[in-house]
């Protein structure tokens, strides 16, 4: 349906949007590349939805510009931007059947797709999402998972420059979410689609994204591959967004025996940065506070000089609460007073 595409499908340049006194988006710049699955990760209220609405044109930025396929569309109406949008809520029309819901975007008077082609596209999309048997159902007669498939399908029937998805899985239970996560990634690869996906769920970000952008208070803090964000977060906040259990942040002055770069205020310790061993003369000694058995792994809560550290341990490792253990740090992350990352010293 479309010719060659520019390298970056969507470029945001310094866009800002305020609602009254709330600065929902601040000086945000972002480029979504062709064929990429970019996930914006941030807590509720971070400005994720607003960012997507600015791209669609449902909101107009106070400053900055939006480019789509090399065109400045900052002041274009939503309909002319060639975008498909999956809303966070209310994505299906309750008065229509599944088929008509899926056909709705194609039946737009601006698009004038002939009915046989609509039927083909709808059937293909339903096939792709495993909802082909539900086409005749009313949109209200579906399970939660099916509704979300249809909601995503309403975007996939089209072939836009970019698909925007606003937490499409957030209302589902964990099992369905895991299932749809995989499928969405499969579909994206199959179609070679460009997707800007918004979520507060780090697992979704880690599993689906080709790149993650971490957003907080309307600002983009860091953008990179999941690995980059995980391994070299630019700040302690970004570090705390990814990884489970969450990264342990320890005041640097509590450490002994661990060389840290000058200016380090806080040390970030993930599970893989921390080794636990029986006492053997080491200087960092902690006490096991509690051991949670999760089956294949144990969550170990350690008390170290009044700070609580949480880490994973092999269930076979014999640990009792109250037991004293030796802690060894391996290349922890170092942060300055402002929470910004300080590159580790070269050993």
């Amino acid at each position, binding site marked *: 349906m479309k010719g060659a595409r520019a390298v970056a499908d969507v470029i945001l340049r310094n866009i800002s949007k305020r609602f009254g006194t709330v600065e929902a988006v601040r000086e945000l710049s972002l480029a979504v590349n062709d064929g990429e699955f970019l996930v914006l990760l941030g807590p509720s209220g971070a400005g994720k939805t607003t960012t997507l609405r600015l791209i669609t044109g*449902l909101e107009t930025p106070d400053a900055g510009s939006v480019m789509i396929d090399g065109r400045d569309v900052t002041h274009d109406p*939503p309909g002319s931007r060639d975008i498909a949008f999956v809303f966070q809520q209310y994505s299906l029309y*309750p008065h229509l059947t599944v088929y008509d819901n899926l056909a709705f975007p194609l039946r737009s008077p601006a698009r004038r797709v002939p009915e046989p082609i609509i039927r083909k596209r709808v059937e293909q999309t339903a096939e792709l999402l495993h909802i082909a048997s539900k086409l005749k159902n009313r949109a*209200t007669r579906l399970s*939660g998972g099916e509704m979300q498939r249809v909601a995503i399908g*309403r975007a996939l029937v*089209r072939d836009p420059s970019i698909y925007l998805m606003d937490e499409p899985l957030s209302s589902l239970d964990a099992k369905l979410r895991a299932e749809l996560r995989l499928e969405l990634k499969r579909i994206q690869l199959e179609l070679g689609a460009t997707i800007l996906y918004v979520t507060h769920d780090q697992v979704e970000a880690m599993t689906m994204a080709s790149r993650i952008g971490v957003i907080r208070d309307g600002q983009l803090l860091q953008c990179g591959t999941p690995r980059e964000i995980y391994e070299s977060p630019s700040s302690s906040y970004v570090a705390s967004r990814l990884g489970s259990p969450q990264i342990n942040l320890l005041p640097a002055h509590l450490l002994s025996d661990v060389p840290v770069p000058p200016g380090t205020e806080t040390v970030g310790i993930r599970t893989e940065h921390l080794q636990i061993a029986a006492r053997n003369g080491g200087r960092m000694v902690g006490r096991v506070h509690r051991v949670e058995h999760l089956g294949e792994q144990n969550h170990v809560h350690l008390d170290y000089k009044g700070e609580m550290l949480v880490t994973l341990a092999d269930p076979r490792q014999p640990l009792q609460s109250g037991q004293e253990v030796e802690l060894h740090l391996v290349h922890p992350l170092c942060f300055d007073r402002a929470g910004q990352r300080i590159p580790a010293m070269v050993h």
Partner: protein
Amino acid sequence: MTAVLTKSSAHSIVEASPRAKIVAGGLVILYAVITILPLLWIVATAFKSQSDAIAYPPKVIFEPTLEGYVNLFTVRTRQTPDFIAKLPPPETWYDKLVRQRDMVIAGPSKVVPRFVNSLIIGFGSTFLAVFLGTLAAYAFSRFRIPLADDLLFFILSTRMMPPVAVAIPIYLMYRQLNLTDTRLGMILLYTAVNVSLAVWLLKGFIDEIPREYEEAALVDGYTRLQALRKVVLPQAVTGIAATAIFCLIFSWNEYAFAVLLTSGEAQTMPPFIPFIIGEGGQDWPAVAAATTLFVIPIVLFTVLLRKHLLRGITFGAVRK
């Protein structure tokens, strides 16, 4: 946030006990009987003879006659039995019926044109009020309108005055504009009164429809007007039906303005019905017949729209 499946109803999840169901059912039936009894009495009276209609104690069992309906639809003159005997034999059953009472039919009565007036004015003003009300309510609900709250209050305040208070100014205005005793005048007047109600009711319903529905349509390339038609209106159908019923009931039953502003051409049924009473004694069966006919359209209209009213309950059951 959970996906709500359709089995659940708007009411309690707990199944009522059989005893509670019987009591509730009994109360509903009792209420229905109490409210429907006067109506049934009117329907029955329409089929009584004049003497049965005023018999005391009231007659529940009687010999039905169509005299009431015949009297309603005709104008008759009283004649001497000699005169009637000299006439050629009656051509129709109703001619015969009338002659038994020493009368002959002089022509049709005004009931049909009056009924037509009621239909045109009632449905015309209802359509206009709902149409304008929907557009205004949509605008109030979706757009940032300066002084929206004050405007809405002003719109409501037009309903606070009793008709009597504005009767004289409106009468003078209408005379000046040559709108007295015209259907157009009555349609405009009832529309003006109803539109305030329509705006308020419909705004409530449209507020309930998430904006995301229209926004999705906008992103998909629909214009705002198309989105209104394809997305908002189908979901506001409940509200529109309810509003239409309220508007129709008002304009159908309206009496004060109708008496004041119509006398001939545009007279509606409410001022016409009491006028029957005075014609040649108290003709209760004819009045009852007129009342029966008068009630039918509104009952039909309500029954027709009932489906939409009930269906409204399942709306919004998607991802709450």
